[in-house]
């Protein structure tokens, strides 16, 4: 019915892939957008430099949650190197729907969380 809420976005929102937590994650990070309350946590299981398994949990708007789901599919099996090279545009392209400036933060929250996890950051510097 609309560009923003295309079938695949709603599908990822209603049936998120890789949803949940890992028993003993090698890396784990969580963050939120204070303004809208979107929240994402990502757990990583590594084998060497490679993402062997990934899970996310979270709550928030359809865009933030669908983007997280899509992102987990994008990076499963990839190396941390490749994750570090990922840019905002890569995820936005994969989303495939027009994201207005106001919703960019929603769409990119999961990427921010994943990057923190990939860099082994536990907390953003204040």
């Amino acid at each position, binding site marked *: 019915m609309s560009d*923003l*809420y295309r079938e695949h976005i*709603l599908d990822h929102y209603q049936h998120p892939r890789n949803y949940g937590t890992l028993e003993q994650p090698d890396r784990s990070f969580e963050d939120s957008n204070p303004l809208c309350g979107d929240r994402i946590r990502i757990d990583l299981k590594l084998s060497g430099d490679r993402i062997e398994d990934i899970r996310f949990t979270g709550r928030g708007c359809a865009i933030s949650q669908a983007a997280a789901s899509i992102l987990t599919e994008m990076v499963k099996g990839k190396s941390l190197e490749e994750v570090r090279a990922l840019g905002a545009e890569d995820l936005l392209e994969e989303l495939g729907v027009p994201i207005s400036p106001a919703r960019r933060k929603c769409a990119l929250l999961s990427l921010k969380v994943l990057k923190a996890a990939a860099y082994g950051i536990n907390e953003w510097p204040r």
Partner: protein
Amino acid sequence: MSTKAGTQPLDVHRIRTDFPILQRTVRDGKPLVYLDSAATSQKPASVIEALAGFYRTSNANIHRGIYELSEEASILYEEARAKVARFIGASRPDEVVFVRNTTEAINLVARTWGVANLQAGDVVVTTILEHHSNIVPWHQLAAERGIVVHFVDIDETGRLRLDQLETLLRTQPVKLVAVTHVSNALGTINPVSDIARRAHEAGALVLVDGAQSVPHLPVDVRALGADFLAFSGHKMLGPFGIGVLWARYELLASLPPFLGGGGMIRTVTTEGFTPGDIPARFEAGTPSVADAVALGAAVDYLEAIGMAAIRQHEVTLLAYALPRLEEIPGIRLYGPVGEDRAGVISFTFGDVHPHDVAAVLDLHGIAVRAGHHCTQPLMRRLGVVATTRASFYLYNWEADIDRLVEALQEARRVLDVAG
């Protein structure tokens, strides 16, 4: 505020033709359904014309030039002040200080009255319903001067717990009660004259945030019994950039200046300065002259329609909207139901994030607000991160509600809202 019985219903058809923006379409040809007047109102042609007309024919700086244009601009500016004063029942025009908006008006009080009168340990009582603009200035004084800020809670209906206010007034050194007249998030109309009476009995002053009341209800500062009233022009059909602080004359005259500069002084020497008379003392620098003049035109427009009739119209719209929204599975409505409710409807919709609700409504050309409405303490109190908010004004009609309800029904299907 009671509304006069027997007010004529508004001729919304005619009113809508006064608002040029309501003729435009959005999102590929959909008529605009504007339900975000609590954020800012739309402007009638008369206000837009007053603004443009000032620049076209009367533009000059005020209170300075000896030439005709400057005299004319000064007269227009002071006429606008007098109109606003009459509109809110002030006893004299110089009780009205022009500022940028409600936020600046409240900060003016904190920075002048607050700094001159509040010491460590003094208490400012505010409420959980407040907009951040009536919280942060008091937090700032708490950090800088050690004053203590207390919050009056709400009950389950969204009404203030006056028993808590009473206890605070009885047991704490309360110097100021800073309360909103109408909640921008829940629509609660607070009993401010009752609150003012209680506060005064305890020796405290009262600041009323009128941002959501002056545009929508008949407000008379004498009946209100407040000491300070703050409001914004842009929410009452006026332009951005102009707002009002009203204060009782003697009180205003006793306050030290706010910002320093031109216009606010009597004399300046290399040794120092002496402040000017009120209200100029609080209007340092060149004011938003054209915006003030256009606010005067907004007041003319509101007075021609009648505030009691506007209030009655919003009561009627609320009575139409609430039951229809309530019928939609998954909708949860916030705020009191009764005479003490303004035309503001906050709701949540199952687990769906308000941004998604607002984004789907936007696709139908419906403008609503989603977020915390600058009331984070209230959102936390309600246990939500955000709500979707529809708010009315004199140009809204039942068709707008019908479109909102239809669009929500569709959103329910698209977003799979759990009933």
